[in-house]
C-alpha cells in the first residue's frame, strides 16, 4: 500500500547541514499499523512529514497505492493529501471553530455537499465518543478529548493512509490507553493503513503490527513487534527495552487498582475516567 524507497532529506542551516533522513526504505501493507520508534532527533518526525510532503524530501520515492506522490504538485498534490489523514502531537485544532466545525473542515475544503458533511460529522462524533461536545470549543476540552477531535478530523475524508505524529506524547498514561484503543478499533473496523511515530515503547507494544527502529536518520531494525523486541539488535532498541522494564517494575510497585482510582479521583473532573478505571482495573487484575 505504501512503499518508501531510498528517501533522503538534509536540512541546510547557517550552522551547517543536518542529514535528517539517510536512505530510508520500507513497505507498509494495506490495513497494517506500522510503527517507527526512536529517540528525539532520530528523524522520525521528518520521515512521517515527508509522507504527505509537509516536508520536501531531497530524493527517493514514496508510492501510495502505486502512485509516486513525490512527483505531484499543486492541485494533484492537494487531492492526494485529502486521502491522507494526519494526527498531530499538539492536536492543531482550530480554536475559533467548534468541535463540529473542526471535524467538518477537511470536508468543507473538499467541497462535499452540506448534507453529506452533516451526516459524516454526526457519525464521527459517535465514533470518537464526543456527541455531547459537538458545540464546544477546543479550549473547553481536555487533552484526550482534543485528540479525539483530531482523530475524527483526520478520518473525515475516509483516508487510505493515516499518519500519526506522536499522537499520545502530550497525554497522560490513562488517556493514552484510551486513545490507542480508539485508534486500534478504527483500524480494525475501517481497515485504514496506519503509519505512526512515537518515542513510547508502550504505543508500539499495544497497537503496532510491525515496527521499525530509527537511529540517526536510518532504520536500523525492522520487523514484527514481537520479533524485534525479543531479539533486539540495535543500541536504540536495547535502550528502549531497558526503559520499559524499568517502567513496569515501577508500575508493579504502585499499581493497586485502588491507588489508581484514588489518583484519578484526586485529579477529579468528569472526563474519560469511568471507562478507563474499569479498563485499568481489568488490566491491573
Amino acid at each position, binding site marked *: 500500500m505504501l512503499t518508501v524507497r531510498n528517501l533522503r532529506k538534509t536540512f541546510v542551516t547557517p550552522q551547517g547541514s543536518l542529514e535528517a533522513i539517510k536512505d530510508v526504505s520500507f513497505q507498509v501493507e494495506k490495513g497494517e499499523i506500522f510503527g517507527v520508534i526512536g529517540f528525539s532527533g532520530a528523524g522520525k518526525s521528518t520521515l512521517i512529514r515527508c509522507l504527505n510532503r*509537509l516536508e520536501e524530501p531531497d530524493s527517493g520515492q514514496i508510492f501510495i497505492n502505486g502512485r509516486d506522490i513525490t512527483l505531484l504538485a499543486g492541485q494533484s498534490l492537494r487531492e492526494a*493529501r485529502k486521502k491522507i489523514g494526519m494526527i*498531530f502531537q499538539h492536536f492543531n485544532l482550530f480554536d475559533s471553530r467548534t468541535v463540529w466545525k473542526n471535524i467538518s473542515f477537511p470536508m468543507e475544503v473538499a467541497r462535499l455537499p452540506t448534507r453529506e458533511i452533516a451526516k459524516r460529522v454526526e457519525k464521527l462524533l459517535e465514533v470518537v465518543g464526543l456527541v455531547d461536545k459537538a458545540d464546544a*470549543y477546543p479550549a473547553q476540552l481536555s487533552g484526550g478529548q482534543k485528540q479525539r477531535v483530531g482523530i475524527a478530523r483526520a478520518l473525515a475524508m475516509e483516508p487510505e493512509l493515516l499518519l500519526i505524529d506522536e499522537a499520545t506524547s502530550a497525554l497522560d498514561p490513562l488517556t493514552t490507553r484510551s486513545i490507542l484503543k480508539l485508534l486500534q478499533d478504527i483500524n480494525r473496523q475501517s481497515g485504514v493503513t496506519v503509519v505512526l511515530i512515537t518515542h513510547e515503547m508502550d504505543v508500539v507494544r499495544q497497537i503496532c503490527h510491525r515496527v521499525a527502529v530509527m537511529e540517526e536518520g536510518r532504520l536500523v531494525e525492522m520487523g514484527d513487534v514481537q520479533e524485534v523486541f525479543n531479539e533486539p539488535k540495535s543500541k536504540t532498541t536495547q535502550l528502549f527495552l531497558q526503559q520499559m522494564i524499568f517502567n513496569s517494575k515501577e508500575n508493579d510497585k504502585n499499581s493497586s487498582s485502588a491507588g489508581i482510582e484514588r489518583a484519578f479521583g484526586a485529579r477529579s473532573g468528569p472526563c474519560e475516567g469511568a471507562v478507563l478505571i474499569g479498563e485499568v482495573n481489568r488490566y491491573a487484575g
Partner: protein
Amino acid sequence: MQDDLWLLLLTGTEETLYMVALSTLLAILLGLPLGVTLVVTAPGHVLPVPTVHKFLGALINATRSFPFIILIVILLPLSRLLVGTTLGATAAVIPLAIGSAPFLARIIENCLKEVELGKVEAAIAMGAQPMEIVAKVLIPEATASLIRGLTLAIITITSFTATAGAIGAGGLGSLAIRYGYLRYRDDVMLATILTLIILVQGMQWLGNRVALAVEHRRYRFK
C-alpha cells in the same frame, strides 16, 4: 465659558469621527490585502514569493518613515485630484488612509504570524488551498488579536486627525489649535482634550469588549 463652545465641540467631534471612520475603512481596504500578502509570500509560508515579500516590506517601511505631517503635505495634490480640495475633513481622509494603511498592514502581519504554524500545517495536510488557509484558518484564528490591533490603529488614526487638523483638516485637533492655541481659548483647549480622552477611552473599551466576545479562550484576561 462661552456659548459657542458646545457647538464647536459638537462639530469638531463629528468631523473627527467622520475622518476616523472613513480613513479607517479605507486603511483596512488597503492594509488588509497588504498585510495578508506580506504574510503568505514570506519564505516557507503558503504562497512563498520572497521578492514580493521583500518589496512590500520595504514599501511599508518607506511609507512609515515619513513624519505624518510631511506625508500629508506630499499627498495634498492627490487629495485635490480625488476630492477636489485640500481643505476640510474629506480631503484629510486621503492622507490619513494612506498614512495609516502601512501601519495597519504591519499590525495585521503580526496578528497573522501569531497563528500557530501547526494549524496552518494541519490545513495544508488536509489539502486546503492557500487562499482557503487565509480565509478559513489565518483570519478566523487571529480575529481577536486583529480586533485588538485594529483598536490600536483606530486610536492612532484619531491622533493623526489632530495632526491633520493643524493644516486645515477640521475636527477636534483643528479646534484645539485654532481656538485653544491661536486664540488663547483655554476653555476650548481643555474641552477638546477631555473629549479626545473620552473618545479614546470609549474606543479602547469597545475594542476590548468585542475582542473578548469573539475569543474562545480558556482563561479570559480582561
